[in-house]
């Protein structure tokens, strides 16, 4: 197949300048990396505008961007559920209620919190599964990105993989989390500036927003109206599955317990800034549909291959964004768009790598392999972990290349771990009677429930209208199992002394009184964010 996009020297200059600046930023941060906390937690010194943009950017990986544009071309505006109900309430909850426990206890990672609140076994279970998942995930997205670039730009798989992995390796190696975060902020702006032109030109070509609406199926323009029953909307999910599965379990599981995002907030300069991080991030998050949903809708309206024809061939939705680039962007701005995609890929990968090197060094190496070494030893280990983390990701990318089906399976297996974890945290943080072994076994039962449910669904013992509905309900039942069994087992096992739980559990922690002005108050931003989200849902009802 002939590449659909050809770049010229201007495009390459734009790409080159981006690569150069990321490395310069990483290198310039090198001299600040004196202790392991500098490397893994940015010395807890960053202002909230930086951490909140990084918080968002680390999640806005290339798979996410490409996949959500594809979803929008397939399901229409329903895709905003992943950005509004599927993210905002969880981000608000993290900022208002959970962040004090993460930040004030000075834990250095999410697994470390589990150790203090529960026990070593719970931490181990979470740390090992998280470390493996992040590396596999970064390999998978590296492969997906390289494949896309091979098909559209004609770059070889190996050169894309090596180029992107090497750049990320260099800047994380030198500047650790700070470098990752600084670059994520730069990437945030490049993703927006790179993707907005296609929205602008596309809307211009289609005759404005009204022109767009007139050219797509009516069901593509309503967020809730067709959610009454699963058969009425293209996603095949009813409102209950959406609210419980995506809005509650999957979203809270991801945004409040995934160290990849939580780590960004933990790098803030003080508790108030840490709490504001997810809250401030929620506003641009609500706007992300502008750059992912609209291009998907525009592809349906403007490109003939995405017209829905009953009985016709299924379009390759994953190519929707790239084809929009190819059709509407002239050289120059085209280079910027490709840079934006590359930036989103690197931000996702660096997020994975920094989360991995921290969990590996503190929660696995420092806890089970070599305890109580001087701090400099762990700083060095963090740098080694960055190197072998990247190498392992590259390996994964090549394994996935030989077995493409692995990609779907792996992504699915990750949901086994993510969904129930939120129940473990919720009970741990808000119910002081939760016991260490209650937490551990509850989590394990939750994970097993997800796996069991998946098997039942695959063997056709359970039926759902769509794959997505199966996913949402699976998350819900895994969460319930974790929640119920953690409570039951806690009633029969030994509790921790209350004195050990101070700072870790709600009710045993003195309330932080903040003398902040209104605009620095987390509660103000939380309420405002919630109001804006509700209004948006009503407008696009």
């Amino acid at each position: 197949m002939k590449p659909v996009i050809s770049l010229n020297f201007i495009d390459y200059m734009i790409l080159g300048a981006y690569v150069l600046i990321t490395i310069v930023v990483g290198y310039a941060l090198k001299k600040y990396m004196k202790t392991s906390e500098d490397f893994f937690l940015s010395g807890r010194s960053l202002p909230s505008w930086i951490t909140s943009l990084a918080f968002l950017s680390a999640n806005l990986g290339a798979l996410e961007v490409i996949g959500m544009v594809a979803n929008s071309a397939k399901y229409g505006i329903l895709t905003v559920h992943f950005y509004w109900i599927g993210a905002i309430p969880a981000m608000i909850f993290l900022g208002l209620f959970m962040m004090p426990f993460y930040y004030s206890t000075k834990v250095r990672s999410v697994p470390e919190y589990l150790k203090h609140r529960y026990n070593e076994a719970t931490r181990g279970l979470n740390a090992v599964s998280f470390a493996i998942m992040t590396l596999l995930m970064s390999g998978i997205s590296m492969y997906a990105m390289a494949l896309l670039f091979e098909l559209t730009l004609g770059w070889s798989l190996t050169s894309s993989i090596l180029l992107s992995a090497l750049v990320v390796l260099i800047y994380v190696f030198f500047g650790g989390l700070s470098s990752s975060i600084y670059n994520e902020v730069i990437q945030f702006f490049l993703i927006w500036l790179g993707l907005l032109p296609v929205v602008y030109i596309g809307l211009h070509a289609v005759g404005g927003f009204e022109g767009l609406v007139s050219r797509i199926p009516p069901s593509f323009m309503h967020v809730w109206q067709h959610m009454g029953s699963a058969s009425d909307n293209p996603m095949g999910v009813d409102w209950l599955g959406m609210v419980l599965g995506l809005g509650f379990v999957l979203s809270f599981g991801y945004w409040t317990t995934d160290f990849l995002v939580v780590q960004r907030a933990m790098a803030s300069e003080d508790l108030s800034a840490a709490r504001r991080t997810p809250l401030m991030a929620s506003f641009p998050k609500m706007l992300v549909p502008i750059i992912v949903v609209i291009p998907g809708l525009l592809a349906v309206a403007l490109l003939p291959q995405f017209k829905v024809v009953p009985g016709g061939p299924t379009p390759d939705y994953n190519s929707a964004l790239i084809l929009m680039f190819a059709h509407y962007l002239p050289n120059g701005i085209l280079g910027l768009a490709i840079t934006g995609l590359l930036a989103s890929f690197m931000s996702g990968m660096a997020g994975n790598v920094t989360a991995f090197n921290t969990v590996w060094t503190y929660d696995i190496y420092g806890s089970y392999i070599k305890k109580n070494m001087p701090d400099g030893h762990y700083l060095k280990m963090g740098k080694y972990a960055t190197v072998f983390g990247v190498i392992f990701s590259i390996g994964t990318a090549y394994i996935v290349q030989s077995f493409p089906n692995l990609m779907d399976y792996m992504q699915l297996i990750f949901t086994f771990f993510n969904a129930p974890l939120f129940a473990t945290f919720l009970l741990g943080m808000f119910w002081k009677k939760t016991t260490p072994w209650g937490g551990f076994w509850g989590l394990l039962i939750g994970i097993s429930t997800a796996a069991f449910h998946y098997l039942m669904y695959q063997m056709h013992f359970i039926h759902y209208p769509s794959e997505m509905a199966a996913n949402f309900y699976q998350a819900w039942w895994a969460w319930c199992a974790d929640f119920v069994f953690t409570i039951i087992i806690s009633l029969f096992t030994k509790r921790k002394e209350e004195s050990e739980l101070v700072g870790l559990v709600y009710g045993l922690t003195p309330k932080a009184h903040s003398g902040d002005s209104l605009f620095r108050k987390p509660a103000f931003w939380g309420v405002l964010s919630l109001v804006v989200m509700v209004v948006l849902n009503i407008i696009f009802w």
Partner: protein
Amino acid sequence: MGNTEPRRHFFDLKIPLGSLLGFYGLLLLVYGIFGPSDIYDKSAHLDVNAIWGVLMIVLSSAFLLSAYRGRKAKK
């Protein structure tokens, strides 16, 4: 920040960010004005390079200006 504990800050991120966007802005603006014009047939006849160039120059100036003021305030 109402914080008694002094914090050590890294260099100001707005400087590399503003510089990169400024470079892009100039590059796109120059290419949009002096480069070939037939490439805009595909972009609904909009010279998006020049438009985007101006926008990025404005954004870049805002970042650099705010970094400059921040530095002055520190001194």
